[in-house]
């Protein structure tokens, strides 16, 4: 069995975005361009979860990953470091927290 080449998220996704899901959670959408790319990422959800946890300094059980076929997307949700708008928050809407995802390879 041959292993497939690594997938770099920013090279295969057509959308990678972040936003709040309520004031305590950050949610990321990785939208894939076609069923092939969606299947490829969906087959590696465990690895994705582990790498996201590491990139965002979270334990794996704090990171939820859901494959959402109707939009050929994978959704990732994790706790915010600071509740939206609290002292020390740097991104009240959470719209610019996706950058570490761009570099993830699966």
């Amino acid at each position, binding site marked *: 069995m041959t292993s497939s080449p690594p997938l770099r998220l920013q090279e295969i996704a057509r959308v990678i975005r972040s936003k709040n899901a309520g*004031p305590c959670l950050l949610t990321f959408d990785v939208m894939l361009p076609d069923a092939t790319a969606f299947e490829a990422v969906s087959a590696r959800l465990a690895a994705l979860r582990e790498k996201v946890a590491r990139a965002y300094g979270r334990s794996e059980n704090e990171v939820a990953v859901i494959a*959402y076929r109707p939009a050929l*997307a994978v959704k990732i949700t994790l706790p915010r470091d600071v509740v939206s708008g609290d002292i020390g928050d740097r991104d009240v809407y959470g719209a610019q927290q996706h950058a570490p995802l761009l570099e993830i390879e699966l």
Partner: protein
Amino acid sequence: MTAIGRLLDDFARQRRPLRSLGASGQLGYGIPTPALEAGLTRSPDMIGVDMGSIDIGPNYLGGGKLAPTRSGARRDLRKVLNAARRLDIPLIVGSAGSAGAKPHLDATLEIIREIAAEDGLRFRMGVVASDMPRDVLKAGIAAGKVRPMDTMPPLTEAEVDASSHLVAQLGLEAFRRALEADVDVVVLGRACDTGIFASIPAMLGFPPGIAMHMAKIVECASLCCMPGGRDTILGVLDDDGFELESMALSRAATPASVAAHSLYEQADPFEIREPDGWADLRDVTYRALDARRTRVEGAVFRPAERRTLKLEGAAFVGHRALLLAGAADPRFIAGHREIFAQVTNVVRDLVCEDQPEDYRLGFRLYGVDGVRNWAEAAASLPREAFVMGECIAPTAERAEEVIRTTKQYLLHHGYEGRLSTAGNLAFPFTPPELSAGAAYRFNVFHLIEMDDPAALFPVEVEVFR
């Protein structure tokens, strides 16, 4: 006869699809007139607009302020109010004034009264305030009926007292009670956005899961389209599904774009959670009717075991003052962490000689760590960077004292290896300090079990003759 009365009569004579116009998902930031007018030519049965969201942060709820300008909110309310009265169809407004607490609802109602008087409009309006009584909430805590959302800690009586404003997100049943008061216009304080568009379908007996799904999409106007935008959208609901069509020709509701909308600002794209239950989207299908219209079927309503209301509260944390400046010295940028720490100490020694350290002072270096608290240092440093100092103190005067002192000592701090001894900062203007008003934090984001919200959140009717 009122607009809702006329609609109910019409459906009693002959059952047919229900046509809803989602005119704005963020009232106050502009409603494009061409798409709204196009929608009004399509025989809509109602117009709905949402004014609020929790995503804008705690300041509006805490401070009792609208997020858009009053003039922006007034302009948009005038458009939809006149449109609804012209066609004699119900207008439903949710989350009045952005955060939906008493000052927000009062400001919204005041604007509506002004418009009604100026434009000579006649209508009956049903209003439901959503401010959560503190004693009821405290009793709920004592009875074990309150639980935190997500990562919030358990709620305490002290936090209840600390909230400047406390609201409950009212659900479909509150919209329905307001409509059942036989009105033309409904305005709610903080409310679930789906209630705006799912309440009339509930009265007419449409399947609740499908109605809730449509409501969740059309409340964002044409955001579900490709390209997404704020133009009015038409949702046509029947007993098996609904059809979506943007009222702007440049926007297409495609199966992919509509399906993708379920991801937006939601932790789980397969669920829409509301006080009375949730819509299960696992078996939903999206089918193109043509290039610009999509039909959606398959959402199923699952009733909740216990009805809950989501509560939101924001507490005052202090007054905020800021320092805004730039830097282009590579030694300053490279050494910024130590420099900020040293200046923080210098400032503390000066402003705390005869007062306690009653404030918090922090810095961001945009270009380096303004947006994220990065785990690892950047591979290279930027040529220029933006410095933001932020102080939060018990009074505005104290916050300004700290930030102005900070400006002076950060400007002249003699850090290790400095070559540029005339000043460390570039001020884009003076004063480079500004007072940014009161600061708040979300201190309540919890659920309370509540079997009968009607008793706590009654409908009030106001008549414009």
